[in-house]
């Protein structure tokens, strides 16, 4: 971005400064640490100058917002045109409880819903399964059948809202239920808008809510991608997720690299279905974490966008800019929240949210300050939402596009994140791709190592966590109001489910489940038959049991 002569001049001046000015300062005030590193292990220099970005080419590496390689943002006007979507994750208790919460959120002006399901639903068990004991409606809403889904979206017109569903293994079943509710409301399928997380690959090394072995899990993800490409043009069939990779202990760099590897795997696998890249790539979406190291995160988001655009263009030969777009949702990092002095978490969340905005996210969820202790209360959720609104309306950061572009530090770091992520991607390509790498335990080991290192750094005070290993309050009493899910939820839910099993047409259910079994063995796209099954009120657990029989269950590879 500078001519060579200028760079040489600057280099000379920098050397002079290092010899004459810097030593005096260091003598008077030695640096606090021998070495400064970010979470990814990249050494941070004391000073960045044009020398650090001397090989950059503005048009090649940054360009203009809304244009390739999208480093500066997907949209030409970014937040001057439209602010990011403030999408808060919600779900607890029965479908009635969450329906009420949804309606409250909509009345407050939200247009995007985001559904948290409880663990039994996520694992594909009905609420009355023995494994569901004590978990029904606790960490999300319990959905066992289309009947529950009808209650969940009762009075909510599906052509007026978009709905995000955090569901992976059973994504096809929950999407089928959503489609069925839409059909009942008379909403044409091409008008259904929303997202299913549906990223089964990361489950094996990050979120670990795996049901089936890797290959059938990937097949199910791709079923949804293919079906949506053909029938649900406004649906984001997948949210390729780094968030959980990060939360499991990965560094920012590993999060970036592993997420893009997963993205590549989904594209390759979907191409095998005979779709053209531009028929599905524009609908692929991504999900990242935003952690504490402010500039590292900003660099990660910018590098991610540029890298994905380059991969789509160079590796998959698309010429459609929409196929190169990395649309991302960001969530502030849950694992950085402390149980100690919980109000401090508001500050952490603010810094992380600001990084996401300066990184150019399309959508953002901010965590609540009490989440290291329990599910958030209405009050703490409000503070979290207000944090986004303050950034949006008061801070001024949304008034220009990509304001940190051109910072020697941010650009150098963005470049370094991209280069190092490429090295990882190459390594995983060399292993034969994501599935062999999972089977070898590569990701699992990498992440476990990083998690352990992070913990050691905290214990050795190489990393300070305010209120935990420094500035702790002796004998601190933690005065937070806890949200409790009423234990009667489980009972109510089980009663409704058992009544449904008595009253539905059980012959029809049996028939459709047999058909599903046959289709699964034949390796067909299962979406159409799953839609038929949910409409016959076959339950989530029954459908997943058929698939468990055909595909087998995943046995965890234990790596400490």
């Amino acid at each position, binding site marked *: 971005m500078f001519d060579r002569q200028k760079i040489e001049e600057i280099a000379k001046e920098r050397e002079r400064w290092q010899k004459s000015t810097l030593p005096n300062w260091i003598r008077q005030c030695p640096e606090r640490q021998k070495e400064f590193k970010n979470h990814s292990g990249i050494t941070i220099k004391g000073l960045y100058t044009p020398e650090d970005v001397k090989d950059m080419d503005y048009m090649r590496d940054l360009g203009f917002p809304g244009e390739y390689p999208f480093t500066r943002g997907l949209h030409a006007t970014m937040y001057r045109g439209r602010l990011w979507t403030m999408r808060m994750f919600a779900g607890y208790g029965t479908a009635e409880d969450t329906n009420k919460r949804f309606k409250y959120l909509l009345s407050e002006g939200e247009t995007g819903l985001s559904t948290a399901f409880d663990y039994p639903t996520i694992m594909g068990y009905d609420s009355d399964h*023995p494994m569901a004991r*004590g*978990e029904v409606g*606790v*960490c999300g809403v319990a959905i066992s059948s289309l009947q529950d889904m009808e209650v969940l979206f009762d009075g909510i017109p599906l052509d007026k809202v978009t709905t995000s569903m955090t569901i992976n293994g059973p994504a096809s079943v929950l999407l089928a239920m959503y489609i069925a509710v839409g059909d009942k409301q008379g909403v044409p399928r091409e008008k259904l808008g929303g997202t299913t997380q549906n990223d089964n690959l990361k489950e094996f090394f990050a979120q670990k809510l795996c049901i089936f072995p890797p290959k059938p899990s990937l097949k199910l993800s791709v079923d949804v991608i293919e079906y949506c490409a053909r029938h649900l043009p406004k649906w984001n069939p997948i949210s390729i997720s780094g968030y959980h990779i990060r939360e499991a202990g990965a560094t920012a760099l590993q999060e970036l690299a592993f997420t893009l590897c997963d993205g590549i795997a989904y594209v390759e696998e979907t191409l095998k279905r005979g779709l053209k890249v531009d028929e599905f790539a524009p609908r692929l979406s991504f999900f990242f974490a935003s952690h504490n190291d402010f500039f590292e995160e900003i660099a990660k988001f910018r590098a991610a966008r540029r890298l994905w655009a380059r991969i789509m263009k160079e590796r998959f030969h698309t010429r459609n800019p929409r196929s190169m777009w990395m649309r991302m949702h960001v969530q502030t990092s849950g694992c950085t929240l402390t*149980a100690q002095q919980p109000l401090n978490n508001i500050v952490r969340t603010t810094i992380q949210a600001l990084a996401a905005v300066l990184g150019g996210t399309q959508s953002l969820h901010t965590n609540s300050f009490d989440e290291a202790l329990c599910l958030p209360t209405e009050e703490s959720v409000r503070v979290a939402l207000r944090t986004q609104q303050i950034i949006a309306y008061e801070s001024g950061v949304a008034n220009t596009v990509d304001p940190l572009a051109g910072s020697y530090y941010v650009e150098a770091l963005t470049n370094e994140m991209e280069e190092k992520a490429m090295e990882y991607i190459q390594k995983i390509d060399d292993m034969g791709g994501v599935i062999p790498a999972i089977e070898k335990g590569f990701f699992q080991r990498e992440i476990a190592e990083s998690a*352990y290192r992070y913990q050691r750094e905290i214990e050795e005070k190489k990393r300070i966590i305010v209120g935990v290993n420094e500035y702790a309050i002796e004998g601190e009493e933690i005065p937070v109001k806890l949200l409790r899910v009423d234990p009667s939820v489980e009972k109510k839910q089980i009663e409704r489910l058992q009544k449904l099993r008595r009253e539905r047409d059980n012959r029809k259910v049996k028939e459709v489940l047999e058909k599903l079994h046959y289709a699964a063995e034949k390796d067909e796209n299962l979406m159409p038959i799953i839609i038929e099954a949910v409409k016959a009120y076959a339950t989530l657990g029954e459908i997943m049991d058929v698939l468990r029989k055909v595909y087998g269950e995943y046995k965890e590879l234990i790596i*400490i």
Partner: protein
Amino acid sequence: MQSGRKIRVLIAKPGLDSHDRGAKVVARALRDAGMEVIYTGLRQTPEQIVETALQEDVDVIGLSILSGAHMALFPRIMELLKEKGLTDVVVFAGGIIPEEDIPELKKIGIKEVFGPGTPTETIIKYVLENAPKRR
């Protein structure tokens, strides 16, 4: 400490939640401190946990849970331990467990509850000091 036999610890994940970062870090820290550590993997039923404890002849069990189902699952684990005669085994817990649940958990025999942010040093020290002495 104890002559010959290393302290045997079972780190177990009851319930459906899959947050194993903490459990694995604790397992590794105890192992690095010289103990024999067995990690169950995710989503173990109370029956499976107690069976593993019996099979592996452990001295200490650490239960890790973040789903909020501890009040439903821990009593069953403690009951089964009693049934199998494993009353000497020291049981501690960690994860997201609200302060106000701790008295009830102590009543059923959970010896200690470690919240988020606990240094692994504290847990190592606790296990070293509290593991039952073998004959």
